[in-house]
């Protein structure tokens, strides 16, 4: 589904390489976790995949279901099924959350040549999904992420994911800043979207999210590369011994 091949990325503004040859394939139906110390390039990978400005791809390819991702605008990637749950969701004063969701859902449908969702149908689905994530009517009415707590912002990301039904879901530290209850809600939201057609790339700094979202594979990223790949046990190893030992073993 998503194939990342020898990806090298540097900052556009300065000659600072950040990703130094990332190789990774996420198959449909599988959950891949990426763990790694702060600054290892996890967020950069997620931004480059979704098309944020400011990075330059110096080598490598990314392929999503047969399409060259780097030839696509961010909105085209989204319509093709790519979704990033942001580590820091953006506040947008003046744009209502509901308007935003409906515009996004219909923009994707239009680009795929499908009919727009009727207002009634949209409302029905959004209410249902919001309820599962304990997002109340007030949060739907408010401007996007404005005045939301950390946990509310993350739940709002999962709501968008549920509404857009992407093929590949990238979650960047969706667990950071969440208490246990909020993490459970978010994990339930993610788990309910797991199916055989959808792949997940779950970026996390800590192991605890992976207790709730059970990964098929765990990768360790360090200094812009995936240095180790294993099963769920690898996450426990990180939890118990930290990155230091692990990375020392690699070097």
């Amino acid at each position: 589904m998503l194939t990342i091949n020898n990806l090298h990325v540097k900052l556009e503004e300065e000659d600072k390489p950040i990703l130094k040859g990332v190789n990774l394939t996420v198959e449909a139906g599988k959950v891949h976790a990426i763990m790694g110390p702060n600054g290892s390039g996890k967020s950069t990978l997620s931004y480059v995949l979704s098309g944020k400005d400011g990075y330059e791809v110096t080598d490598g390819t990314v392929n999503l279901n047969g399409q060259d991702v780097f030839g696509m605008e961010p909105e085209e990637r989204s319509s093709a099924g790519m979704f990033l749950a942001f580590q820091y969701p953006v506040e947008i004063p003046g744009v209502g959350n509901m308007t935003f969701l409906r515009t996004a859902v219909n923009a994707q449908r239009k680009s795929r040549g499908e009919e727009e969702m009727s207002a009634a149908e949209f409302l029905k689905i959004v209410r249902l999904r919001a309820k599962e994530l304990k997002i109340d009517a007030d949060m739907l009415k408010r401007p996007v992420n404005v005045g939301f707590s950390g946990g509310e912002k993350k739940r709002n990301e999962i709501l968008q994911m549920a509404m857009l039904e992407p093929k590949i879901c990238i979650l960047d530290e969706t667990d950071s800043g969440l208490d246990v209850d909020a993490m459970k809600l978010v994990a339930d939201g993610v788990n309910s979207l797991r199916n055989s057609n959808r792949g997940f790339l779950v970026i996390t700094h800590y192991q605890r999210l992976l207790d709730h979202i059970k990964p098929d594979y765990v990768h360790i990223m360090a200094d812009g590369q995936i240095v180790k790949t294993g099963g769920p046990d690898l996450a426990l190893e990180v939890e118990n011994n930290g990155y230091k030992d692990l990375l020392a073993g690699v070097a």
Partner: protein
Amino acid sequence: MTVLTKNFRDIELRIAKLNLPQGDWATEARTDALKRLRSVGMPERRDEYWRFTRPDVFNQSGTPPATVSAMEKEIVFSQVDALQIVFDDGIFNAKESDTLALEYVSIDRLAESSSDTHWAKSLYGQLETNGQKPVPRPLGSLNTAFATDGILVLVKGSAPKPINIIYNQKEETSDVTLHHVVRLEAGAELTILESGPAAARLNNVIEVDVADGAVFHHIRTQNNTKDNHVATHIFARLGNASTFKSFTLTINGKLTRNECLIEITGDDAVAHVAGACVGDGNFHQDDTVFITHDAKGCESRQVFKKVLRNGAVGVFQGKILVKAGAQKTDGYQISQSLLLDGDSQFLAKPELEIYADDVICSHGSTSGAIDEDALFYLRSRGISEYEATNLLTLAFLAEAMDEIEDEDLREMLTRQLEGWLERHRG
């Protein structure tokens, strides 16, 4: 004799082809206004409030042509149940206008009110005179002297529906001077709507006297073609616990100067002036506001938002003057521009002048581009760059649009903005 400097010579050029209407109750006020004009001269670039805007086109005798839109014009407020008054190039169109009758409201026309004891006699040119201090507003005096028509509205209760003034431009070089006088007696209520490009060159004045406890709302759209030149003034006086709220949406036009001068003379009054504008290319839009607090416990708000692209220029000059004794004044002022490219410009002069100690006044002015992070966030959800930019542009304007209390009217003006965005793709 001193030699006349340029802006004094300009008066004679400017008025050479104009006639000062004679023989009615307003003649004295008109003659006085011409005297006022002659004493201050036409506006010049070096005048305090003309540094950011060139007044030349308002001073010259001829009118630069402005294309008359060939399209059948959509009347912005056509869905509103209102008393409709139509002016074509400043000439009253009786056929298109409703009968000038409304419960609790008396409506006359300036051009046809010859009785020597008209109620408007005590106001016509009077609020304009008050507005000349401390800074002259010569185009206001020019208007009082030479206005050819306008409506005189006396409100004695709660008007059952708004008055909707529709301006049509018919000729490419029409030069129009209109002067309206509105008096709301104690406890009265009225909404006035204005829309349309009135002329190639327009000079429009509204004098509004809002007595104790009265409520006045004013919603205006200046939906011009690209060449119009427009200068407007609102001169308002507010009594005890009265409310004045004015909102202007400016779309296109080569040069628009909107001045709003408010004297708050009664305690606990509320004055809100707000505006939104969108301009592309050869567009210069100027809001110049002066609010004088001369009473206790009053609130004033100025909220202005400007979207500018392709070299468009926005100007905001807003002042809050709090006189000694105007304690518990609550004054707020914000002016912001969204520059959609590097060529556009926003010039702002926010001013506070306060002579009372127990007041809250704040002002802010910012200029910025589209928020790249917000743009990427929207695009990452499948929204095209064009649509995302429009969403963020409307979001930017929202704080000003929210100043329109009536939801339906707000919706109508938002649709005007959406139409503009649709016509002005990147």
